[in-house]
């Protein structure tokens, strides 16, 4: 291969990309995600999904089923399930449990990660972040990316400021997202202890949810329940018991365990009736 060839190729790509970027800049487009839109078009969303899955594979220390092995039945990654509070050890595929189809497959399993492990057990959760950042750059409208990254930054890596900044980026790209507002409200409530801000953001999340989901035949009641529970806990903590009871009452309507919520309401009512 003549050495001038790759240099000429790199120069041509740089000139072409530079020209496109100049045109884009002159057009006054300010969305940072548009660089990828210019280069990749709509295919960037497919890339964003793949990059998000890459982060999930990193979460499993490289152990990940290929498209040939299986498709996740509910369409959610294990990493995203973890942010919702469940995925721990509800699936285990140790080599002894796996059935190899032939001797070659068994032999080949020595050369790639063939045992289910979670990254966080080894304190390496930060390693998923580059892929989540890239996924957000590729598709700024993928809400999951922001909430999942913020969870890991806030809960596991104690990087609250970075989590807030990333969620704010997400909110700028998705102003109507109640999921991002919920995550931001959680951050203010649990990490910053900024009650007025947390309350304002969570109430805005409820408003957005009602506007987007309430009219749907199958609304996202799980998210609504999460927001209400967070808001009720916040009011309870600050001693605003009537408001907490109000939120719990709304939560009872959508909760999968209404009896538990009712018990909580009664406890608060008893507390409130005391002189």
């Amino acid at each position, binding site marked *: 291969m003549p050495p001038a060839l790759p240099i000429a190729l790199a120069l041509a790509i740089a000139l072409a990309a530079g020209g496109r970027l100049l045109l884009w800049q002159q057009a006054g487009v300010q969305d940072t995600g548009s660089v990828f839109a210019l280069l990749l078009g709509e295919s960037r969303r497919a890339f964003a999904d793949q990059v998000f899955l890459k982060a999930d594979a990193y979460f499993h220390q490289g152990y990940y089923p290929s498209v040939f092995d299986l498709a996740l039945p509910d369409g959610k990654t294990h990493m995203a399930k973890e942010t919702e509070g469940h995925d721990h050890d509800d699936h285990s595929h140790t080599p002894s449990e796996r059935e190899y189809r032939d001797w*070659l*497959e068994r032999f080949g399993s020595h*050369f790639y990660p063939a045992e289910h492990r979670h990254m966080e057990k080894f304190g390496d959760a930060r*390693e998923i*972040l580059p892929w989540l950042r890239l996924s957000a750059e590729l598709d700024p409208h993928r809400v999951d990316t922001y909430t999942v990254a913020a969870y890991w*930054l806030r809960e596991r890596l104690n990087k609250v400021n970075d989590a807030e900044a990333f969620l704010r980026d997400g909110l700028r790209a998705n102003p109507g997202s109640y999921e991002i507002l919920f995550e931001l409200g959680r951050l203010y409530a649990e990490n910053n202890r900024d009650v007025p801000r947390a309350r304002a953001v969570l109430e805005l999340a409820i408003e957005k949810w009602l506007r987007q989901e309430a009219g749907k035949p199958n609304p996202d009641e799980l998210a609504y329940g999460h927001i209400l529970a967070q808001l009720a806990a916040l009011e309870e903590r600050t001693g605003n018991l009537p408001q907490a009871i109000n939120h719990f009452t709304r939560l009872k309507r959508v909760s999968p365990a209404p009896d538990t919520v009712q018990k909580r309401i009664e406890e608060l009512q008893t507390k409130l009736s005391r002189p």
Partner: protein
Amino acid sequence: MNTVWALANVVVLEMVRRKDFYVLFILTVLLTGTAGSVNLFNDRSIVRYLKEICLLLIWVSGLVIAITCTARQIPAEREHRTIFPLLAKPVTRAQFLLGKFLGCWLATGLALALFYLFFGLVSASREHSWPVANYLQAGWLHWMMLGIVIAFTLLGSIVFAAPSSNGTICFVCSAGMLLLGRHLNKVALSLAEPLQSLLYGLYFVLPHLELFDVRDLIIHNWELIPWGVVALATLYAAAYAAFFLFAAWLIFRRRALN
């Protein structure tokens, strides 16, 4: 054996003089450096994405060096007519092929050693550890895999007329095996007979280059592969390389040189 070594030495010297390796090495360094300079949530200890990018570049560079260098060996000898005086000396065609193979394989090994040294430096700069045995295994298996590719390309350079067509075919076959080889049996099982048996048969016959790709183990700091397994993989690679070289010799021994 001296003849084979002498031929191999010429190939290695030729590869050292050419700019291919240097260009690819500089590109790998530049691209890895650019990826490493990205600020990710103000955390300088994030390293695995960098290891992944660096190893991918090493794998691509390794394939490019192995295939392009091997593909031009015999056609260049023919084109410059140096093959005639060479084979007029007491050099058999088998020795000629073995010398070419050994030269390309050794030169690729030298390139890989430098690439993996760079990878080790990049990794150590952030992880502050130096798992030499793991890197040795990864580099060794990578080199063994390239041995199969070099032997296959040498066979191709006798079968196909132009080095460009040979190079392209070898790239496509190698990339195809690396990407799909592990899944051929699963695809076969989803097919109806007789396609199922045919594809499953191919799955066993084709050389599984992906067996030698242990990048994920290196990136995610997995434990060492048992040395016995590495030895078996080495035998596997040697068997396929020998098969391709034998096939190349069978065709080349009766082939007219002009």
